[in-house]
Each structure stands twice: as structure tokens, then as C-alpha cells.
């Protein structure tokens, strides 16, 4: 089943054409690597797909709803309930403990603290970082921090995880561990993953790849 479909996306920043007729299709539960050289438009594509950034033209459909024509509050509601995000770094709230960070999305959806923290603890366990529950993000290693971020992305049971270079700041061993845990957890919960990476060994955790070059994406499987 097709979950997300983008067609004819264009996005410019001043004179830079970050996207120029980009398209991609994501089916439920699949892990898709978005590859391409630095500056090719991968992050811009991810931001447009996730409704973080409005494209200049083109459409993004999530199931049968068009993200590009929703109002801001509907779009952020969709992001909160259906999507999860993992970035390279800097996504955890430094003042909160890791447990509170993971519980935060559930608290924002109105869940009671006790229930939210129980679910959060469970996810920290699945990502094998229950040991850092009471530490603040600044006190953890890079690999632990990313696992906490993955737990936070998964805790709401999203249908799509957007991961932009999630291992970009990690060494090989920690990066592979994060990829293994992320893709295993996503497969268990049935979440699709849009994985932006320029690293082939990271992309090898995907089911298929889409290549972005000069703002144009080549979705081989769905080529028109």
C-alpha cells in the first residue's frame, strides 16, 4: 500500500534550485534509502515529504490526503501523530532526562505522565539504552543519544520515520548498531522509514534506494 507519494516537487532557496522535479513513493512498512552526494537535495526532499517545508510546486500525498494543501495546524497534527523524526544530532531537549525526552511526544498528546514514562522506559529497553534513562542527553555518548532519539521517534507508534543522516555523527560500529536497532524496531512495528544517507553501508540496511542528483530524484521502481 502506498503511504506517501510526492510528485513534481520543486524548491528553491534564492538562486539555488534545491529540488527540481523530484518524486518518490513510499509504501507502508518499507525502508527506503535516499542517497546522493552532499548538496543534491536529500534533506530538502525529506523536509517536503514530512510537511516541514512547503515546496514551491508539486504535491505530497499521505494516504489520500494532500499535505501541500493542508493548513499548518492540520499538518503539525499529522506530523505529531503519524510521523517520527531522527536527525543527525540536536533533537533531544538538553534540560530533560532521556526518559523524559522519550516520554515527551506522548505527554504532548495528552498522555498521563506515569503511562508515558512506562512506554518510554519500554522503548529505551528495546533500543538497549535503559541504563541512561535518568541521565541528561549531554551526559550520554553519541551512540546512546541517537538510540534515545530513535526511541523517541518510535514511541508514538508512527507510520513513517524520517531519518536524516541518523548515523552521520557516529563511528562505524555505533552507526551500524543504531541502524540495526532502528530498522529492526521499524520492521517490528510496521513503520516505514525514509532514510537519508550518503553512506552505502548505512543504505544497505534499506529495502531499496532512491537516488537524488542535482535536485532530481530517480525512484527506479516507480519510474514513469
Amino acid at each position, binding site marked *: 500500500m502506498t503511504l506517501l507519494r510526492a510528485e513534481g516537487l520543486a524548491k528553491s532557496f534564492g538562486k539555488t534550485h534545491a529540488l527540481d522535479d523530484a518524486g518518490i513513493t513510499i509504501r507502508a512498512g518499507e525502508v527506503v534509502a535516499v542517497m546522493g*552526494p552532499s548538496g543534491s537535495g536529500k534533506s530538502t526532499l525529506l523536509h517536503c515529504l514530512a510537511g516541514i517545508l512547503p515546496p514551491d510546486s508539486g504535491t505530497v500525498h499521505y494516504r489520500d490526503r494532500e499535505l501541500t494543501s493542508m493548513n499548518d495546524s492540520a499538518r503539525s497534527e499529522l506530523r505529531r501523530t503519524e510521523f517520527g523524526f531522527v536527525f543527525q544530532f540536536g533533537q533531544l531537549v538538553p534540560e530533560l532526562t532521556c526518559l523524559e525526552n522519550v516520554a515527551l511526544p506522548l505527554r504532548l498528546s495528552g498522555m498521563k505522565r506515569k503511562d508515558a514514562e512506562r512506554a518510554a522506559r519500554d522503548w529505551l529497553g528495546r533500543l538497549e539504552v535503559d541504563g541512561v534513562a535518568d541521565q541528561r542527553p549531554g551526559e550520554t555518548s553519541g551512540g546512546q543519544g541517537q538510540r534515545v532519539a530513535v526511541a523517541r521517534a518510535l514511541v508514538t507508534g508512527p507510520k513513517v520515520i524520517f531519518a536524516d543522516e541518523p548515523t552521520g555523527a557516529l563511528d562505524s560500529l555505533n552507526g551500524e548498531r543504531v541502524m*540495526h536497532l532502528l530498522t529492526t524496531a521499524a520492521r517490528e512495528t510496521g513503520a516505514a522509514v525514509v532514510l537519508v544517507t*550518503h*553512506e*552505502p*553501508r548505512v*543504505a*544497505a*540496511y*534499506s*529495502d531499496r*534506494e532512491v*537516488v537524488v*542528483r542535482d535536485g532530481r530524484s*530517480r525512484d*527506479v521502481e516507480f519510474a514513469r
Partner: protein
Amino acid sequence: MSIGHALLGLLEGGPRHGYDLKRAYDERFGHDRPLHYGQVYSTLSRLLKNGLVTEAGVEAGDGPERKRYAITDAGVTDVERWLATPEKPEPYLQNTLYAKVVLALLSGRSATEVLDTQRAAHLTTMRELTRRKTDGDLADQLICDFALFHLEADLRWLELTAARVDQLAVEVTR
């Protein structure tokens, strides 16, 4: 490296003598391993037998070095198929991949397509290795990692070449 395909690719530019072909091959692909004349002529006679090249005129005198060879339609089809088929992903493919890219550019075909096809084949193998690694013990992990790092090096080269295809096109067709 398939010398037959490389020679066919070079013949797409027009008929040539055997020694001429050897020179063209050595110049482009033979930097550290030039062809022997024997290799050139045995390859050409195989291509001739298979109908991939024909003799296009013989000059006075005798010996194989007098003959000019031209590629046939079957030969063109064969080059096309070769370019469109990814190499089996294994380390140290640089000569073959480089030759494919250059020959695609020389013949006005899409070198990007060649690179994309190869990338897909490499990634498919890398996925299999990653799966094996994930399910395996430490020995499996180390063995798979060795292959993965080598294939990754190939892929980095493919990326870098893809980014320089336009520049390379100018140089090889100059």
C-alpha cells in the same frame, strides 16, 4: 575485463586495423597492462567467428595486420547488452567499470545509466551481506564487513564518477 567488449566498443567509432585497436586500447585502458598483439588477434578472430565484426578491406601484403575490422549490428547489440548488464559486485572492478563508462561516453550512450545499474547491483549484494551479518555470529560479521567495506569503496568511486561524468565526457571525446 572483457577485452572483446572493449575492442567492440572502440570499433563503434569506425573500422580499424588490429594494431590501431591495440594502440587505442592501451592508450585508454592499458596503462599498467598493455595488450599483446597475440591477444588482439585471437580476440578479433573470435569476434569474427561470432559475427560481431567483419573484415572491412584488406591491404596489399599478407598477415592479419593488413586487415581492417568493422563492427556489425550484432556487435553493437552485444556492446549494448554488456553496458546494460552490471558487473558481478566484487572488489577491484575499476578497470572494467572505467572502460564501460568511457565506452558509453565515446558512443554517446548514457554513462550515468551504466553507473546507476552498477550501483543497484552493488547495493543488492551489500544488503545480502548486511542481512547475513545481522543474523550471524562475530566471525560472520567480520567476514561480511570486509566485503562490505570493499564494495563501499567501489560505490564511492561510482558516486565520484557520476559527479564528474560531464567533465569526463569532454575529455574522452576531445
